[in-house]
């Protein structure tokens, strides 16, 4: 399945300039194709989120990019290296081409602004020609699209449930119809039923709008379900990248095998997982 690449990361390295310095991301290379779901798996602290932030240049001191490039492939065919883009142009590109759904919507929404206001300021910034009535209508439509309902435009974040807040975050991320959506543990804090709803929502929207997704999570089985390809990260490096089915059936790297074996299976003898070390592939 060869797709046109949307994003190419080559040799990216990120270091936290503390004492002693921490290399959070080491020489990472991966590509995201048009319309595909790339899963990024790994345990806590492996550098997945740092990578996601680095790609969007959201890193704050003491973290800094120490090498490599991040190339966004434009529709028109031109390539842009995000790491060297001037700040003003990067700001224009943000949310328009690449958007992010952050971990923990609890804290990701501004508590003193209404949901509608937070959706609207994206348009105020990126589509200044839009008039107020049109903006309100579009925001309402966005909320409808994710299943929250336009009547929630004037609600405040604390008035919504966890699942609804996450949907609002998704609506906000899709506002400008970006080409790439980075999702950082979007469902980790939610219970399983809500998780499933959100994932279905994302699938539906992806079919409708055709964006690519980088899905970051420690939940490998989840990725096996929803991703086209999966990249496994460990200690700042990508140890294996493969289509999902291949990764499941023929994992190449030791770590991938260990990771796969760490999740209890629904089949097999009761107690196998704990006593015998679980499913091997």
């Amino acid at each position, binding site marked *: 399945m060869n797709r046109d690449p949307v994003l190419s990361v080559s040799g990216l390295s990120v270091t936290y*300039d*503390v004492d002693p310095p921490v290399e959070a991301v080491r020489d990472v290379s991966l590509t995201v194709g048009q319309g595909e779901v790339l899963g990024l798996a790994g345990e806590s602290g492996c550098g997945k989120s740092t990578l996601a932030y680095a790609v969007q*240049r*959201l*890193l*704050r*001191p*003491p973290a*800094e*990019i120490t090498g490599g490039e991040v190339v966004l492939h434009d529709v028109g065919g031109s390539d842009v290296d995000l*790491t*060297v883009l*001037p*700040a*003003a142009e*990067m*700001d224009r590109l943000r949310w328009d081409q690449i958007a992010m759904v952050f971990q923990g919507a609890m804290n990701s929404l501004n508590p003193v602004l209404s949901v509608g206001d937070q959706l609207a300021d994206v348009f105020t910034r990126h589509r200044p020609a839009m008039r107020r009535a049109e903006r309100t209508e579009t925001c309402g439509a966005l909320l409808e699209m994710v299943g929250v309902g336009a009547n929630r435009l004037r609600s405040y974040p604390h008035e919504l449930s966890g699942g609804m807040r996450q949907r609002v975050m998704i609506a906000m991320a899709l506002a400008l119809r970006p080409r790439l959506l980075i999702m950082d543990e979007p469902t980790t804090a939610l219970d399983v039923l809500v998780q499933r709803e959100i994932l279905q929502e994302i699938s539906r929207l992806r079919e409708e709008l055709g964006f690519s997704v980088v899905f970051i999570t420690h939940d490998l089985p989840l990725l096996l379900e929803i991703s086209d390809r999966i990249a496994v990260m460990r200690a700042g490096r990508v140890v294996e990248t493969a289509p999902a089915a291949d990764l499941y059936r023929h994992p190449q790297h030791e770590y991938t095998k260990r990771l796969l074996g760490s999740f209890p299976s629904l089949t097999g003898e009761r107690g196998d997982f704990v006593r015998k070390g679980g499913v091997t592939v």
Partner: protein
Amino acid sequence: MLTNRKSVTGLVVLGLFALLAALADVVAPYGPLEKDYTALKQPPSATHWLGTTHLGEDIFSQIAYGTRGVLLVGLTAGVLATVVAVVVGVSAGFLGGWRGESLSALSNVFLVLPALPLMIIVASQYDDPSLFLVAAVLAITGWAWGARVLRAQTMSLRSRDFVQAARANGEPLWRIITVEMLPNLTAVIASSFVGTVTAAVLGLTTLAFIGVIPITNLNWGTILYWAQQNGAFPDFWWWYVPAGLAIALLGAALSLISFGIDEYVNPRLRSAGERARSRKRLQKKRTKRSPA
């Protein structure tokens, strides 16, 4: 926390004042009320480092001896107020229910009552209040703030797991409070103590300046009182500037210590400093890779 530049500076300055107070007899060239009729209203000179008053008293000596009054009253008031604040605040936070609520209401009332008018009215009642009495008056008006903060902290600690575990274990109440909770509250107690001392110092000098506290109690505010009463303004700057500066310096030192404690308690403030230094390094490298 002790390596924090701010709190170290504050502690050093505070230490200097404490030394000055303790060694006033040695350091001060004259007694505070010793009059030298040959040198009235003199500007600073070799014999009188900060000049003299209208009665020929050496101002530097007055400031040195005055430090005692300020520190003694300030610290006593701080201790008194903090003890009350701990008792009321921690109990209010821990007890909950109607008892906790009424203690909380009590501290809120004291918090809202304007301190200075109350102090003025009470202090004017006594012809020669002892240092302790003055400290007590200051403490009465100053304990409520600490109590409120402590109550909030205690409430958040109370629901923490280790406290629940202690309760489930059947530990007696006094033990839970002293052994489990108080150590966690030290930083807040320290911060509130420093704040109260600062307020007490300001309150004392203000009361002395107004003349509500009789002049027998020598402190920096008294110096300013005399200065104003005897026409030191505006010409005889050496009379009134040092005393005010001393108050400001002591207050600033105490604030710095308080900041040190604050940064210790709030790690975000601490790491803001680290990040700032890192930013400077990044800017020096002039890399275009950092976001705006």
